[in-house]
Structure formats: structure tokens, C-alpha cells
């Protein structure tokens, strides 16, 4: 009887201890940054989603802009078609979150977007010559929306660059590099923007009233 009870107690103690060790190990590894790589990866992907969103938002504004300008400046056909074509090209290139490790794809994306920025800039510059267009309520509204969107793009790009910096640094620095080479072998550094923000932005055309 007594031996049995002792045995039971012993077995329980072992089980409790092993459970404790597992719990400690889990705590230790979590503290050691085993979760850092997937966490930063998801954050960077979310930020990329925001970048994509804001470019999409700009793209959505363009048909309205083109229509408005057309109403006042029909003869500027070249500039208008350039914008429409650049938009079509830019919307074709979409990069979903799983592709952001591909630097080539990202470069294609930003080249297309930059082309579109240039085309919009030329359209706004042309609009300068049409006083009726400049003072039309529709155009002023669109212009404010476009400016706001450009600014949101800039913010989203900055947030993405920062998130990628954190993620890439984690992959290459001490606790992270261990996990990257063991648990997360498929985690690759992400690509980031190479064209400076100033070049991506639509040139700010100031209208003098």
C-alpha cells in the first residue's frame, strides 16, 4: 500500500516537473525571439498592403480626373491618352504580399507607378493653361483628393520601408539569425523601394488665382 502510494506520488512529481520544463522552454524561446521573424514578416506584409491600397486609390481617381480635364481641354488629347495608358499599365502590375521578396517585381511595380506619376504631373501642368478648368469645383475637389492620396502614398511607403528594415535586420542580426537558419529557412529578406520618394510624387502644380 505504502509503496504504491509513494510510486504514485513519484510519477506525479515527474510529470509535473516535465510539464514545468516544457513551459519554461516555451517561455524561454518566446523571450528569445522565436516569434519575432513571423511577427515582423506579417507587419511588413500588412504595410505593403497599405502601399498597394493607396496606389489603387490614386488609380481610382484618374478616370474622373481625365473626364473633368476632357470637358475643358479636349484638344490636349496626347496628354490625356498618356495618362490613361500609364494607368492601364500601372494597374496591370500588382504585387501581392507573398511576392515582396522579389526585388525585380517591385522594381517593375515602382517603374510603372512612376510613369503614372509623371503622366499625372504633365496633365496637371497642362491644366494650368485653362482658367475655367482651374476654377471648376470638380477639378479643385479632385486636386485636393489627388494631393491627399499622394501624401498617403508617401506615408505608406515610409511605413513599409521601416517595417522591411526591421524585418531584414531581424533576419541578419543575432537572435534572429539563429532562427532564420533553423526554423524559418524560407524567410527571405524583403525588397524595398529604390526610387526616392520625391521622384515618385506628382509634381506639385501651384495654381495662382
Amino acid at each position, binding site marked *: 500500500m505504502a509503496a504504491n502510494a509513494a510510486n504514485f506520488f513519484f510519477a506525479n512529481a515527474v510529470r509535473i516537473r516535465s510539464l514545468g520544463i516544457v513551459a519554461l522552454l516555451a517561455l524561454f524561446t518566446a523571450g528569445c525571439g522565436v516569434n519575432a521573424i513571423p511577427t515582423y514578416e506579417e507587419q511588413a506584409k500588412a504595410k505593403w498592403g497599405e502601399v498597394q491600397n493607396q496606389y489603387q486609390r490614386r488609380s481610382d481617381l484618374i478616370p474622373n480626373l481625365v473626364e473633368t480635364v476632357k470637358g475643358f481641354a479636349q484638344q490636349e488629347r496626347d496628354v490625356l491618352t498618356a495618362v490613361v495608358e500609364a494607368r492601364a499599365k500601372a494597374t496591370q502590375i500588382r504585387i501581392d504580399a507573398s511576392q515582396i521578396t522579389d526585388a525585380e517585381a517591385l522594381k517593375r511595380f515602382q517603374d510603372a507607378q512612376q510613369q503614372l506619376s509623371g503622366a499625372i504631373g504633365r496633365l496637371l501642368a497642362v491644366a494650368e493653361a485653362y482658367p475655367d478648368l482651374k476654377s471648376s*469645383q470638380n477639378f*479643385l*475637389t479632385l*486636386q*485636393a483628393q489627388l494631393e*491627399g492620396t499622394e*501624401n498617403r502614398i508617401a506615408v*505608406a511607403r515610409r511605413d513599409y520601408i521601416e517595417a522591411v528594415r526591421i524585418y531584414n535586420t531581424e533576419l541578419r542580426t543575432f537572435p534572429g539569425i539563429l532562427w532564420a537558419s533553423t526554423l524559418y529557412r524560407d524567410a527571405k529578406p524583403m525588397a524595398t523601394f529604390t526610387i526616392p520618394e520625391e521622384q515618385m510624387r506628382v509634381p506639385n502644380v501651384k495654381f495662382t488665382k
Partner: protein
Amino acid sequence: MRFAAAGKSLSRALIALALLLAPLAAFAQTSEPLQFPELTGRIVDRASLLSDAQRKELSRKLEDLETKTTAQFVVVTLTSLSGRTIEEYGYQLGRRWGIGQKTTNNGVLLIVAPNERKVRIEVGYGAEGILPDAVSSLIIQRVIIPKFRANDYAGGIVAGADEIIKVLSGGGEEWKRPPQQGQQIPDWVIVLLVLLFTFGPIFLAVLITWLTVRSITRSTIHGQKQKGKKQQTFWERVNSGSSSGSSSWSSSSSSSSWSSSDSGGFSGGGGSFGGGGSSGSW
């Protein structure tokens, strides 16, 4: 062999790290660090553009706005933008202070930098719907800048803040009118409602008459005795139906559970910003 490989990968990692850090160091050298003022209240008047009375009055309005709508609106005047554009400074200031509620991100900043001659309405993620960029732009161009041009900074700030408060409280329709699309839908709805109210009763009367006639003809077929009873139940049904119908018209006002308990200290609710809003210069 293994050691050599390990050494090589380590040195590669070090080089990579150095490459990563190099642009950071360069970045740190070229631009001075962002200086954010302390959030001392709903009005942070670092450039001293407002009088004490104006500050108190405006602060009360901003507090009212928050108790009514939970939206946090802060007015900031700055002596310097730390060499950044007002757009770059604005959203970072909003994020630092965490203006707006954490879940709804409904924060708004009115930023005035008199030395750079720049003004901006910075709109948090959640307030972009109620205060669109075009509205911010109009308020800046038509209300704030004319006063600033006439050197009436306090007047511009107060008038601009009043308009923003109006819009955030659900008013300010005159700012939202311009785009034609916005007006078509309400017109259409109004016409439909008018039609509903004028022709609805006629339609109902026709329907009721038809039903009554039908129930009478049916009861005459089934037997004279049940006629009275059947008619009554029908009218009971109509009455109960119409009463429940009218009660459904009363709009249920959702009471917000949020309340501002502390009247003295003010702090941001943890809202975030994504570059929404509009800027102007004078």
C-alpha cells in the same frame, strides 16, 4: 572546413549589417531629429498666436466635441517644423500624441507653422470619411488662409476650427455640396419618400378595401353568422399592423458608452494617422 564556412557566413552577416546601418548613419547626419512639443492640452500654442480667452473658449468647444462625438481634435501652433514638410511632420506628431480613440482613430489636428507659413489639417484614419481631403482643402483655402493673409492668425485658427468642429459633428453641408454625385442620391431618395407618403395611403386604402370586400364575399359564402366576427379580426389585424409599423419609424439613437471622465488632464486616446487631410500656405 566547417569553421571556414561559419566564419565566412559570419563575416558576410557583419558586412550585411554594416551595409544596413550605413544609410541609417547617413540619414541621422543629414536631417535634424524631429522635435515634438509636449501635449499639454487640446490647444498646444507654441507659437503664441491665441489669447488666453480665445484658448479657453476654443478648448471648451473641443472638449464638447469629444464628449458628443468621441472625436479628438487638437489645435497646434509650432515655431519650427524641424526642417520637414508639414505633411511629414503632421502625421508623425499625430501618431506620437495618439490623437483620436484607439479603436476608431478619429483624431484631427489643425497645425499652424507661422514661420514656415504653412497650415495643415491632419486627419486620422477613422475621420477621413467624415472629413474628406476636399473638405479640409476648402476650409483651408476659403476660411483660414484669407484671415492668415490679413495677419489675423487667431481669427483664422478660431474660424477654421469652428468649421472643422461643425463638420466633425455631422454638419457643414455647404462644404460637401460641390461634387455633383453627392447631390443626386439624396434628391432621388427625397422624391421616393414624397411618392411613398402621397401615394402610400391611397395604395393602402385600395388594399384594405379589396381585402374587406374579399372577406365579406367569402363570409357570405361560408355563412351569415360569422360575418361580424370575421370582419373584426381583420380590423384588429390591420390595427396592430399599423401600430407596429409606425413604431418602427422612430429612429433608435445609439447611446455611446464612451465618456470623458477627466476634465483636467487631456491625453490622446491612441489613434493613428496615415497622411489624410490637406495643407496650404499663405
